[in-house]
């Protein structure tokens, strides 16, 4: 089955490569920004110059492989490149567009269902900083970087199915997997994982934590890091996509306090806040009346929030109890009360921001779908009685109260709603350090609740969350029938067939209530009016938003 899939997708890949070449080659040759300006609105011509300013917290470190925090990932997306990438803001069809595009690899091909060959662009140079001094990127750099990721990164589970990386010649590298591995290209495109780094920087500095060691091939060069004050980036004059970026640089101002960040935006001292430019509804909606000159765009960002339960222990090892919890939540009322009535009611197992993979609950058998979006207190009480809890039961709810609004309200609503069916909840707030190293890792008693790290590949929301032994399997789920499907979707290279398996998984999971997903509101992409071309995009990938942005004032 894998070979027939390979035969079907090869022509598609060649076609994509040919189209990409037709689009990309002329501007590369002519150095024109015209092709990239196609992303600008009609009548708008991008301007060169200016500094983009943002307010954000300080990253814990800079090495993209030594932290799984989203901030080093965003910094890395500015400084480094990957083999492949997702569309930049001016190329994408929507903020959810995750088409795989060439980056350092100008084309790639599957030799068989376990071997992908990447053909690197020639003449791509690292930033002109010692000890790399602007030398050309070669295949050996790719091998070194991917192997370092697989050895050191906290995300390296994503490379479990990669067997080895081989250098064929200076501009050709082969990735060989143990099995057919469908998520490979998306993982290679994700700035979380696979930035291409120069080995001599690690040899000199020990790792990539220092600003001096942040040497990549990306559109921006990390010029200076004043700890606790700001990060300063400048345009890479040798960036291989000629004509980009438009701005002279970026200034990342360290601002720990959320209200201070919004105040800086109000007063025009920064151009946007957070690496994403996003604000929650509670922050953005007041801004619309006090600062109507700002630009607002709302969309469903890649978030997911859930109740997670110890499905390996009583009482939540009983499917009736889990279903009862799900039916106790009045999702529509939560959306009205906390999210201004707009957003996504059913945020899992596949989030709303992955529309290419998500199965609409309306396409699921209503008898099963009711456990995803239903609200029925009487049925919940009946299920609890049937499970042996006619008078309900007590449970702690572990959580971190410091998440941004409206999370604190969600925890309180949970206590209220669950009590009405007999599940008496005792809130157990945990300081962040304790929460993230205990509860978030699945070490908790009975019940917990909170947001989950978003990823850009559907496999992370399925295999990563439901397969036994996976670190994100907080609920300790172990369902043999499900496990088979999870493996099958990972190994199916044909996109249509894979989608079919993912749909089946969503149908299967609908009434299992291994996790109970909660509704999440829309996020607001807010920025100064003179910042043009600043595109909204899902994921922790700042470069996609700013690479074709320009300042018009």
């Amino acid at each position, binding site marked *: 089955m894998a070979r027939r899939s390979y035969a079907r997708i090869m022509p598609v890949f060649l076609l994509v490569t040919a189209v990409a070449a037709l689009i990309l080659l002329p501007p590369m040759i002519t150095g024109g920004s015209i092709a990239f300006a196609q992303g600008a609105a009609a009548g708008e011509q991008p301007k060169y110059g200016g500094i983009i300013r943002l307010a954000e917290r300080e990253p814990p470190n800079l090495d993209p492989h030594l932290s799984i925090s989203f901030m080093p990932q965003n910094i890395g997306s500015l400084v480094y490149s990957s083999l492949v990438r997702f569309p930049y803001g001016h190329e994408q069809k929507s903020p959810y567009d995750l088409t795989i595009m060439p980056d350092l690899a100008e084309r790639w091909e599957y030799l068989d269902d376990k071997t992908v060959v990447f053909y690197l662009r020639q003449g791509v140079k690292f930033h002109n900083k010692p000890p790399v001094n602007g030398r050309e990127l070669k295949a050996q750099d790719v091998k070194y970087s991917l192997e370092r990721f697989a050895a050191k990164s*906290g995300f390296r589970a994503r490379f479990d199915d990669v067997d080895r990386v081989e250098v064929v010649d200076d501009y050709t590298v082969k990735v060989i997997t143990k099995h057919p591995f469908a998520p490979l290209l998306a993982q290679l495109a994700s700035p979380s994982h696979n930035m291409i780094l120069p080995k001599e920087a690690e040899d000199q500095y020990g790792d990539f934590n220092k600003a001096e060691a942040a040497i990549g091939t990306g559109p921006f060069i990390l010029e200076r890091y004043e700890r606790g004050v700001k990060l300063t980036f400048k345009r890479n004059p040798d960036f291989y996509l000629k004509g980009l970026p438009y701005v002279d640089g970026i200034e990342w101002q360290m601002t720990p306090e959320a209200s201070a960040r919004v105040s800086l935006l109000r007063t025009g001292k920064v151009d946007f806040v957070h690496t994403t430019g996003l604000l929650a509804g509670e922050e953005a909606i007041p801004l619309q009346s006090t600062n109507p000159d700002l630009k607002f765009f709302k969309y469903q960002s890649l978030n997911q929030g859930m109740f997670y339960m110890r499905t390996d222990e009583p009482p939540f090892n009983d499917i009736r109890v889990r279903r009862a919890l799900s039916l106790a939540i009045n999702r529509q009322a939560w959306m009205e009360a906390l999210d201004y009535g707009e957003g996504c009611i059913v945020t899992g197992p596949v989030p709303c921001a992955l529309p290419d993979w998500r199965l609409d609950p309306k396409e699921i058998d209503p008898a099963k779908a009711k456990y995803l979006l239903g609200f029925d207190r009487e049925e919940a009480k009946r299920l609890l009685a049937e499970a042996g809890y006619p008078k309900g039961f007590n449970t702690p709810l572990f959580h971190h109260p410091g998440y941004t609004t409206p999370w604190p309200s969600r925890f309180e609503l949970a206590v209220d709603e669950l009590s009405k069916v007999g599940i008496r909840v005792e809130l157990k707030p945990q300081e962040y350090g304790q929460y993230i190293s205990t509860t978030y890792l699945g070490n908790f008693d009975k019940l917990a609740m909170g947001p989950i790290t978003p990823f850009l590949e559907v496999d992370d929301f399925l295999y990563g969350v439901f397969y036994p032994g996976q670190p994100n399997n907080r609920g300790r789920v172990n369902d043999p029938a499900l496990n088979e499907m999870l493996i099958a979707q990972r190994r199916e290279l044909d996109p249509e067939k894979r989608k079919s398996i993912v749909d089946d998984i969503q149908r299967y999971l609908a009434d299992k209530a291994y996790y109970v997903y909660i509704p999440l509101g829309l996020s607001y992409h807010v920025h100064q009016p003179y910042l043009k071309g600043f595109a909204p995009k899902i994921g922790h990938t700042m470069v996609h938003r700013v690479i074709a942005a320009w300042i018009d004032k």
Partner: protein
Amino acid sequence: MREYLLKRVLLMVPTLFLVTVLVFLMMRMIPGDVVLQMLEGYAYADSVEALRRELGLDKPMHIQYLEWMSGLLRGDLGHSLWTKESIVVEFARRFPVTLELALLTIIVSVTFGVGVGVLSAVRQESWLDYAGRVVAIMALAMPYFWLAILVVVLPAIYFRWTPLWTYVPLTTDPVENLKILIFPALVFGVSRAGPVMRVMRSSMLEVQRQDYIRTAWAKGLPERGVIFKHAIKNALIPVVSILGLQIHFYLGGSVIIESIFRLPGIGHFFFEALIRRDYPVVQSINMIVAAFALLLNLIVDFSYAYLDPRIRYR
């Protein structure tokens, strides 16, 4: 006096030793593992153990303590587990910011507190006295972090202006630096002025009833001379005690002020290290701040001798 000074300095040693033991143990008793937090959900067994070995956290606790103490005695505070930066370098970069903020805060709180306290006492039972006492109660009641948020947010909403700037060191541009620090110092200082004002008022009222003040009035000295030359100096003694007791607060309470006003000081750095369980950073900074607080208290004690010549230390 010399003997007293020596005794006090020698007493600092066991105090600091106790601080090291307490800080070391308390950090490890807080729930949450720094290694798991660094890996945050990707805690493969071999990776956890490998990281624990790399960070030196696999050794017995008493060995970890002795290694830390040995470094401390050599002036080597170690490196951050997260950033690998030298703690000495980070401290040298950040402490001047916190120190400057603390000094400005003390100046504001003393100026405001002493000024209002003296006025209140000298014009007892007048509208000035009542106004001063109301202001002191308000300063005591208002949480300084709440006030700080208001100062940052309200002008941004109504006047499109906020007292937040990108930090510039004092040595680079003193004027810009003072402009950046004056608002956080005012917010923090005003909130700390409440107890200063109340103590100053009580102390002034008591001093004004003393015989030597009555004698000064009887001799026909002008009011300014009686108040400033004779009364204030004696009334300041309890105020100095208050300041001595609050020193730790000026240093430790800066955490929130630094976060809100985005100042790259030691307070916020310490707070982030605490959340991340960055043991070497938390332990070392605790030690330094403890030593500094002990030293400042010593200076405060000796200032009593200056203020009241009758006080002599043996």
